[in-house]
């Protein structure tokens, strides 16, 4: 056996971040859990979209679900909607929420510190590696869902949330933009995962933090909260991509969601970094920061929520729930006008423009004793329109179910020749009358004054 002494180098230098990053990536990708997640994200959406798109019963309770057998792009948006609700918070929990805790479970912290020589670099390498894996997972969801949809249904125009048709090229760009916009809140949840992983050590609570946060925020979104509060929560950015599918786009909530999400990502990462650098790795009794997490993690994030709400309330014109009668009427009339043209085309009737139709809507919520404002399934609207050369005004009744995030489902209530259920022939096959049931989205920030 020969053992030789190394000459002492000039100075103590930590391992390069690129080496640490590669090591962390190898560790993550060697875990069966991560491999299965990657496999699922790259395969399952394609199978799901392809299978569902070929069914006669579509998931119409999900945005764009009712268009899944009309265009391949709708399936990807259904997957995106589901991902924003559950999959992305869970994926960030399983990757970022465990990237530090796994070293506690394996008892490898000291070993890693001795090897890398820099807690700062360990943190950066771990954060970057988990971010890389999360991006790979999101990329898989995107590519797989698009591929499944296009393979099963084809590259057809997509009906937007204001009823206008997006040509296949536009649909492709907007769908990709929607997926990209979901990355900002994903980053925020990933940062919360890092924070939980650092602060709570091997405790399973650390792993659950992003999922728990998502659950709490989803419950909050069901409540009739003021629009400033809704937009001040990091989860709203998971919904704001819907605004890309109207013309003009509802960019206000999207931009606010982007900024709020990035603020969460930066603050939560900074808090995780601070807690990580202060940890004493020789303390064998360490099992998470426990009570200290209240002060070091929860309080700053709660303060960020308060500041976000204050800034949004002060800087935007929106008040109350953001769902007002005039906005709803405008939105419904616009969607109706666009879909009327689509219906005319599918029924091979003479084309008529939105301007010629002059569609208007009159809405009422819950009768005369209820204020016409806010979410609820008791909105009743009458849409009126004109046909060129005809003096009579057409009327159609809709029941609207409006949710607190601004999305609504309009359900035709007569006359049945206009908005009843019947099949129409489309390039992709038979489909329900487009005026029977459709989705819309109210811009919560838009001003009606």
């Amino acid at each position, binding site marked *: 056996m020969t053992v030789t002494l*190394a000459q002492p180098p000039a100075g103590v230098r930590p391992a390069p971040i690129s*080496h640490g990053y590669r090591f962390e990536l190898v560790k993550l990708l*060697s875990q069966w859990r991560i491999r299965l997640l990657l496999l699922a994200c790259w395969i399952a959406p394609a199978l799901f979209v392809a299978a569902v798109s070929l069914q006669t019963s579509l998931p119409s309770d999900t945005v764009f679900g009712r268009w899944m057998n009309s265009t391949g792009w709708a399936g990807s948006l259904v997957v995106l909607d589901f991902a924003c609700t559950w999959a992305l918070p869970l994926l960030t929990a399983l990757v970022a929420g465990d990237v530090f805790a796994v070293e506690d479970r394996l008892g490898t912290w000291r070993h890693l510190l001795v090897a890398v020589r820099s807690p700062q670099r360990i943190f950066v390498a771990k954060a970057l590696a988990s971010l890389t894996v999360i991006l790979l997972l999101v990329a898989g969801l995107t590519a797989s869902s698009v591929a499944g949809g296009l393979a099963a249904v084809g590259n057809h125009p997509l009906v937007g949330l204001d009823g206008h048709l997006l040509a296949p090229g536009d649909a492709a760009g907007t769908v990709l933009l929607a997926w990209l916009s979901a990355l900002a809140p994903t980053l925020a949840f990933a940062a919360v995962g890092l924070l939980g992983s650092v602060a709570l050590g091997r405790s399973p609570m650390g792993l659950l933090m992003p999922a728990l946060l998502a659950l709490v925020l989803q419950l909050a979104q069901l409540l009739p909260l003021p629009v400033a509060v809704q937009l001040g929560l990091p989860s709203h950015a998971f919904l704001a991509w819907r605004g890309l599918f109207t013309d003009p786009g509802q960019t206000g909530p999207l931009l606010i969601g982007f900024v709020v999400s990035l603020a969460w990502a930066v603050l939560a990462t900074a808090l995780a970094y601070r807690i990580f650098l202060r940890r004493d790795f*020789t303390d064998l009794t360490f099992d998470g920061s426990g009570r200290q997490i209240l002060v070091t993690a929860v309080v700053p994030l709660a303060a960020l929520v308060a500041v976000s709400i204050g800034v949004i309330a002060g800087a935007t014109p929106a008040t109350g729930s953001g769902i007002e009668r005039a906005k709803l009427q405008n939105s419904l009339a616009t969607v109706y006008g666009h879909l009327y043209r689509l219906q005319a085309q599918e029924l091979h009737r003479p084309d008529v423009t939105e301007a010629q139709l002059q569609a208007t809507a009159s809405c009422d919520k819950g009768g005369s004793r209820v204020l016409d404002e806010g979410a609820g399934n008791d909105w009743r609207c009458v849409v009126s329109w004109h046909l060129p050369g005809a003096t009579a005004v057409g009327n159609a009744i809709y029941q609207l179910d409006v949710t607190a995030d601004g999305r609504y489902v309009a359900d035709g209530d007569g006359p049945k020749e206009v908005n009843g259920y019947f099949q129409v022939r489309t390039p992709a096959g038979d489909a329900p009358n487009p005026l029977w049931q459709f989705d819309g989205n109210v811009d919560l920030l838009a001003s009606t004054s």
Partner: protein
Amino acid sequence: MHRPPAVRARGITKSFGEVIALGGVDLDVASGQVHGLVGPNGAGKTTLLGLLLGLAVADGGSLEILGTPVGRTLAVPDGVAGFVDGPGLYPSLTARQNLAALASLRRYDTGPTASVDDALEQVGLTDVADDRVRGFSLGMRQRLGLAAALLTTPRLLILDEPANGLDPAGKRHVHRVISGLAANGTAVVLSSHRMDDLAALCSEVTILATGRVVFSGPLGKLAAESGELDYRLVTSDPAAAHRLASETPGLRVVTGGEPAQTGLVVRGPEPALDELVVRLVGAGVALRELGPVMTPLEAAFLALTATDVGPEAETEARTEARTAAGAAQIDEENSR
């Protein structure tokens, strides 16, 4: 050429909240020396090893590692390798992948490193180099941890319980590696509860109890200070041996009338034992086995750390221990 000591610690203190892990610890480890760290559970061994590895910063005192003062910020000193609280290995990676990743992390600052294959060969794990660590036994993990430490060709090697779970062959590998490193000038500080390992490997030991040094010095000095030891004799005529032991001045029979296979246990100083051997030979009694019931190190450990004794005796033992430790240090300083 004068080489600075690998470790020079003076008055090191470290607390975790209200728990004092180290209360004024002094430690000197010369280059090329294998230094044992002994103490009961909770004595502060792991904390001290963690400080040497740069995993934590002492609350007080001064610490020099390889001639460089350790500052107040977390930093792993250069030329130092090893592990505390078990080797950190990733079960989802193979042995080779574990080492390759470490080599990649360390290559930047250590210049040419011993190759992964060399390190695996030194600890006898070449055959399982491409197996996932998940299936490794504790002993194999220990050896792989040692291989990981070898990658940097360290000048100070810190090992926490390196003999845990080792089979005889694995133990031989580890002993050979440690002795080889020491022969080439590497200082090795190792903690262990295996007194036979420490006695076989270490030239000096430090005994810790409740965060304080109760003895530090050469093993020989410890043996001298451990006083009378118990020895077990196996002879061809147990009855005659018992009679002769009883008659030997300065020797006391601890157990008697024993079956031949368990032997006779006597207590006394070494000269009295020598006298007994002479008498046994003179009486024509064959001596088949003679050895201490416990090693001097183990005896000293039990005495100095007051293990398994009552409160009064514990106080007495601590007083004796501090006296012994003080005397040992004075002697050591005089000898420099």
